[in-house]
């Protein structure tokens, strides 16, 4: 059912690019996920390949052609002017989109589908707006903020692309304001303040979409053929006072209805940034008609109200969880090792068969294209040599196939052996544990102990057991011999004794 097998995700370093790539990896029918971006990915990816390239169309074209990309998902669009400067946003939104489309267009392009992540900022917010925008409605006024102008221009170039490439399916998804625990937007920032700021005398209507629904909608557009424009927004339009109520916060009409711009400039000095497009929403609000996407078979998991409730839960939990886990950092060498090294067992053991088949297809394709180019080059001359090269290429392909099969066999053997080995080790370990039960890790201090500062060590002490404490005390005395640490250990030990 899914025609998209080789997918290019642009903007891999953005939140959406990363989330989408993670989601696409899970589909077995997707052969390849390739992510491009100027910046490194921010999330851990299993089989997505990252290519460090921005929106240079010549380079992108080579990637697209070499990998025979059939589907491009463009997630780069900047829809929040607080995240970057206006000129950078313009460069990314308008010029970047143009370049990416240039890389996908042409009669010989393998691209069959383009999915573009847009925003309902496309419609703007004006006094004489309809209560629900549907996809066919044009703006009554020209765009008034730089971001809106960018989005309108980017969509225009997409329309042009669709006209010139009638064979390609072009899907534009216009997302409403996104809420969720992981994504960061200006509106979430406003909602996480102690009180929800409002413009005096206005209670705008808002529609939200949960971050999971955003990813699912992009997935939906990849999986199904749904040409055209779709609004993506959860059911239900909430008034801002209602949003504040759901978040359990008071609302603060701190912005005056007249001279709002001045007040916003003053607030910006104080560190609260309200971007122009968000300000327009705070005054007039916006609702969109989400029925077209639903008619195409998509089901939302969250209504607007539920998205707000989820955000509220997160905001209450956030101060408790803060600093819990370390953010992921992309290390090129590590990622390459994990993907390609023959010594990596973990992944191979789990999916030995499927992975080597993937590689086999990859290899075949590569060699096939090599043979093709070899043939092409020699059309204008030595056809004998060409035939010979073709034969060589074919032979090599066959060899590669055999090699891959051998590799598969070897991998499964390795897996079996590894499983047996692991089994035996586990048995040994249990026996050993039983044999030497009381002293567990004599003589070995916690890992990286020497890197820890005195305060950090002291903070750790409470969680250690008696034997470990003894060990640690010996180790500390022999090595750093910090008196603060030693006395802290002693006191913890003493406390343990009195308790027992």
């Amino acid at each position: 059912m899914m025609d998209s097998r080789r997918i290019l995700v642009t903007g891999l370093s953005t939140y959406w690019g990363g989330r989408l790539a993670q989601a696409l990896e899970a589909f077995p029918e997707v052969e390849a996920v390739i992510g491009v971006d100027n910046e490194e990915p921010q999330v851990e990816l299993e089989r997505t390949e990252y290519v460090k390239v921005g929106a240079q169309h010549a380079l992108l074209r080579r990637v697209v052609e070499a990998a025979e990309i059939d589907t491009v998902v463009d997630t780069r669009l900047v829809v929040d002017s607080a995240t970057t400067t206006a000129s950078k946003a313009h460069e990314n939104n308008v010029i970047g989109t143009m370049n990416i489309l240039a890389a996908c267009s042409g009669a010989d392009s393998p691209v069959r589908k383009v999915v573009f992540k847009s925003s309902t900022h496309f419609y703007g917010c004006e006094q004489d707006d309809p209560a629900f925008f549907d996809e066919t409605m044009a703006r009554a006024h020209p765009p008034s903020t730089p971001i809106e102008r960018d989005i309108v221009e980017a969509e225009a170039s997409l329309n042009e692309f669709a006209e010139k490439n009638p064979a390609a399916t072009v899907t534009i998804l216009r997302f409403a304001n996104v809420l969720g625990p992981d994504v960061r937007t200006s509106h979430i920032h406003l909602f996480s303040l102690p009180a929800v700021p409002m413009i005096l005398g206005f209670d705008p209507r808002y529609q939200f979409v949960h971050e999971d629904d955003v990813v699912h909608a992009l997935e939906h557009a990849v999986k199904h053929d749904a040409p055209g424009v779709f609004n993506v927004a959860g059911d239900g339009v909430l008034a801002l006072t209602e949003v504040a109520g759901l978040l359990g916060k008071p609302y603060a009409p701190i912005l005056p209805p007249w001279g709002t711009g001045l007040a916003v400039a003053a607030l910006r000095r104080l560190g609260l940034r309200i971007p122009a497009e968000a300000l327009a929403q705070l005054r007039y609000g916006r609702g969109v008609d989400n029925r077209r996407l639903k008619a195409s078979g998509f089901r939302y998991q969250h209504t607007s109200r539920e998205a707000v409730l989820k955000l509220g839960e997160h905001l209450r939990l956030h101060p408790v969880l803060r600093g819990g886990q370390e953010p992921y950092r992309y290390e090129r060498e590590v990622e390459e090792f994990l993907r390609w090294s023959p010594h990596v067992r973990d992944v191979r053991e789990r999916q030995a068969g499927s992975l080597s088949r993937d590689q086999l297809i990859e290899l075949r394709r590569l060699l096939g294209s090599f043979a093709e180019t070899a043939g092409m080059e020699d059309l204008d001359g030595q056809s004998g040599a060409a035939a010979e090269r073709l034969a060589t290429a074919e032979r090599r392909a066959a060899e590669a196939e055999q090699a891959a099969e051998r590799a598969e066999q070897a991998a499964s053997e390795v897996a079996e052996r590894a499983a047996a080995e692991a089994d035996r080790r586990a048995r040994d370990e249990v026996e050993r544990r039983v044999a030497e039960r009381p002293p567990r890790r004599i003589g070995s201090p916690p890992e990286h102990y020497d890197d820890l500062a005195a305060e950090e060590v002291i903070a750790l002490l409470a969680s250690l057991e008696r034997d470990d404490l003894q060990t640690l005390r010996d180790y500390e005395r022999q090595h750093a011999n910090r008196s603060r640490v030693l006395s802290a250990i002693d006191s913890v030990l003493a406390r343990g004794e009195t308790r027992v």
Partner: protein
Amino acid sequence: MAQSTRTPLSLREREPGAGPLLPAEGLKRHLPGVEPDRQLNDWGRSERVEGVFDATLAEFFYRYWFRAEVEGIENVPAAGGALLASNHSGALPPDAAMIAKAIKEEHPHPRPLNITVEHFFKGYPGFSMLIPKIGCVAAHPANVHRLLFDEDQLVLVFPEGRKGTEKLYKDRYRLRRFGRGGFVVAAMRARAPIVPVCVVGAEEAAPVFAQLGLFKRLTGLLYFPITPTFPHFGLLGMLGYLPAKFKIRFLDPIAFDEEGLHEDKALVQTVAHDIRARIQENLWDMLAHRRSVWFG
């Protein structure tokens, strides 16, 4: 125009419309469901605020101040979308609230009424917050269509628009031009009936003696009327209605069952003129039978 007022409104004779079919037919079932925990609906209407407004101000004015009398309430359909078109008057017009209250009080199947208002209200602080909560919706063709066609609701329009509320006391009960017939197009597109409504009493309840252009510009309001109580009693003076007797008459509905009627501009104009003439005739009739402004 004289003969157009007599044109029969049965539109069945017309050939099937040449216009395109409504593409939105299939989307009706994808309307968002109702979340029972919410107090507001998607248009911003608040049950609570509306309930308070209905139980206090509307109740007082309807029952005791204007002592409203209603005729022809059975002409308001009990189900499905319907467009009510009424004459309009008064500084802060009391007629809309009274029609809504009349349906709530007198109709065997009372339904909420969506009152279309100028876009101006969405842009004016205070009004912007309050107006949607009591059931007012901006008079955008897309809004009217969604309410009538998709949500099967009652919608009240004042085809005279602002020109109706701006007119002075000396011009009372003389209907202004009915816009460009947009309300007829909306009803035809949604294939919803139009119910013409005549209101007598609102002109005397809030008579406007003059309009001050300068103050209108200074305050940014839609208009700046001089009434018996405004502006010298302040903004609340807007509510200082005189106790005129209200009479509301709902006329026979005009049905548009065929698709694509709205494509025919001539037909739209004819129907708009005809509705205007019917309301005007009935207003003269009601005024002729009225013995006293205050007691009916």
